[in-house]
């Protein structure tokens, strides 16, 4: 195995500390994003996930400016944004999307200001790239303990709230009748999404963390038969894409004469290819053929 790896990949990839940090944090972020992403897609909140990811960039930019732990910055901003979306939001989906859009606009504006200050005060242009698109091989090891704590609490929260989350994504009225505090559960879900996107933001960047949240989940939901299975599958796809991306990016230093391709690009491309591969309608055809007369399914809209 290791001889195969060293034949395929540049030797040394597994002994460099930045690469190991990337492997550990990237893998952890992918697991959390996969698990949380499945619920996010099931609840029809991909847009909210995307908005949280983008808005957290303001926190990353602020952390850069103040010299704080970048994960802390992404996380705090994500939490603020999640709370904002929930408090502006109403039951109707269109109003929910408007609240999300409002917070997204304000957050990105703040991000523009902070990134501008980063660039002008630190006279470096790297900040914007790092915050938005990640710099996986330049993560400070100080990120690791906080990342571990954030990832663990996100997974624990999902495990704890698993059934109320599923039931309220099925139908809020049914959940209320079972005594589930639907709004509180919704807020908890958004907070967990904020945790997940903050973790991915330090690896693939704030903008691309949506890809890690939604992509593997979308693939897994096409294939898996149950929510739990979809979560495991999404986590696996995310980890495979992240580690694959790290290896390719590490290798690419060699092919490209020292510049290399950004890790984020490699990871997100792998996810997209997986999405295309799963997107072929084979499964739908099989299901339709297995159940003649059930071709016309209910409208896919959510009320």
């Amino acid at each position, binding site marked *: 195995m290791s001889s195969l790896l060293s034949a395929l990949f540049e030797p040394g990839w597994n002994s460099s500390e930045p690469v190991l940090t990337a492997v550990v944090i990237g893998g952890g972020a992918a697991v959390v994003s996969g698990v949380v992403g499945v619920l996010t897609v*099931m609840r*029809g909140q991909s847009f909210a996930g995307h908005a949280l990811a983008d808005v957290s960039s303001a926190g990353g930019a602020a952390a850069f400016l103040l010299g704080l732990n970048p994960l802390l910055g992404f996380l705090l901003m994500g939490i603020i944004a999640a709370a904002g979306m929930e408090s502006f939001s109403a039951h109707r989906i269109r109003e929910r999307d408007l609240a999300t859009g409002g917070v997204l606009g304000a957050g990105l504006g703040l991000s523009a200001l902070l990134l501008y200050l980063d660039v002008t005060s630190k006279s470096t242009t790297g900040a914007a790239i790092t915050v938005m698109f990640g710099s996986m091989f330049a993560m400070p090891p100080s990120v690791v303990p906080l990342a571990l704590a954030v990832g663990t609490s996100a997974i624990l929260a999902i*495990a*704890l*709230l*698993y*059934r*109320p989350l*599923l*039931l309220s*994504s*099925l*139908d809020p*009225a*049914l*959940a*209320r*009748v*079972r*005594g*589930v505090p639907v709004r509180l559960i919704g807020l908890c879900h958004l907070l967990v999404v904020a945790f997940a996107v903050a973790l991915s933001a330090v690896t693939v960047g704030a903008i691309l963390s949506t890809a890690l949240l939604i992509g593997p989940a979308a693939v897994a*939901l*096409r294939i*898996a*038969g*149950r*929510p739990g*299975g*979809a979560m495991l599958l999404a986590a696996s796809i995310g980890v495979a894409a992240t580690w694959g991306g790290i290896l390719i990016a590490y290798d690419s230093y060699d092919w490209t004469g020292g510049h290399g391709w950004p890790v984020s690009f490699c990871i997100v491309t792998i996810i997209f290819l997986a999405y295309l591969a799963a997107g072929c309608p084979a499964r739908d055809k099989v299901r339709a053929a297995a*159940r003649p007369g*059930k071709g016309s*399914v*209910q*409208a*896919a*809209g*959510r*009320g």
Partner: protein
Amino acid sequence: MREESGVLAVQRVSVSLSGRRILDEVDFALHGGAFCGLIGANGSGKTTLLRTILGFVTPTSGRVVIDGGRRLAQIGYVPQKIVLDPAIPMRTRDLVGLGLDGHRLGLPLAARARRRLVDAMLEAVGATSFAEQRVGELSGGEQQRALIAHALIRRPRLLLLDEPLANLDIRSIAATVSLLRRLALEYRMTVLLSTHDMNPLLPAMDCIVYLANGRAATGRTEDVVRGEVLSRLFGEHVDVIRVHGRILVIAAGAGNGASTDIERNPEHVVQVP
């Protein structure tokens, strides 16, 4: 002091929504084991009344008393339909299981007892054949059965159903009514079921809550569905005609261009089956 209330007592409940009075001093009680139709035209307030009983709508005056006070623990609720993307991997079996413990924290244990309960419930509503199928893929009638199983698995004392017969064909309507009647007896459940057409319920229903103009006429079916009672409720002369085992409620204005009445009360339109 404990009032004599039966399983459900709706006590002089008035509801206003956006400043409009929807329910006006609605007052009735259901006794244990009653199978009751909540009848009214579109917009007469059936859903509003059910949501008030569930506690989702706060009455402007009056109150709802559920026997034992623990409202939600006692009520099973079947919404008219739920909209779920077929791409979501939630099977009929999962929906029914969530009826049992969807409010619990923590991961579900794959306990054999839970599986047996779910299987028995699926069997009882005739949903075994689509137990493994995704909820989003079910037909209207199949989804109805799945939702009934979801509501019943905790053996509620009171079952509320909102338009469970809408979108069903005649045979499914009859099958659903007799299924509900059988389950109500078996589980000793009180049932309140909304519909705009009372006829399919006639073989099963033993009491009626008839809504019109925000007010309700309630009692045993044969006491409520009478010309003088409904005339008082509608505020105009109404004839009740029994023909071939069906009941037709006909307003005096119907047939000579009283289009507003026909719109408000579709039962005014005489349909010959």
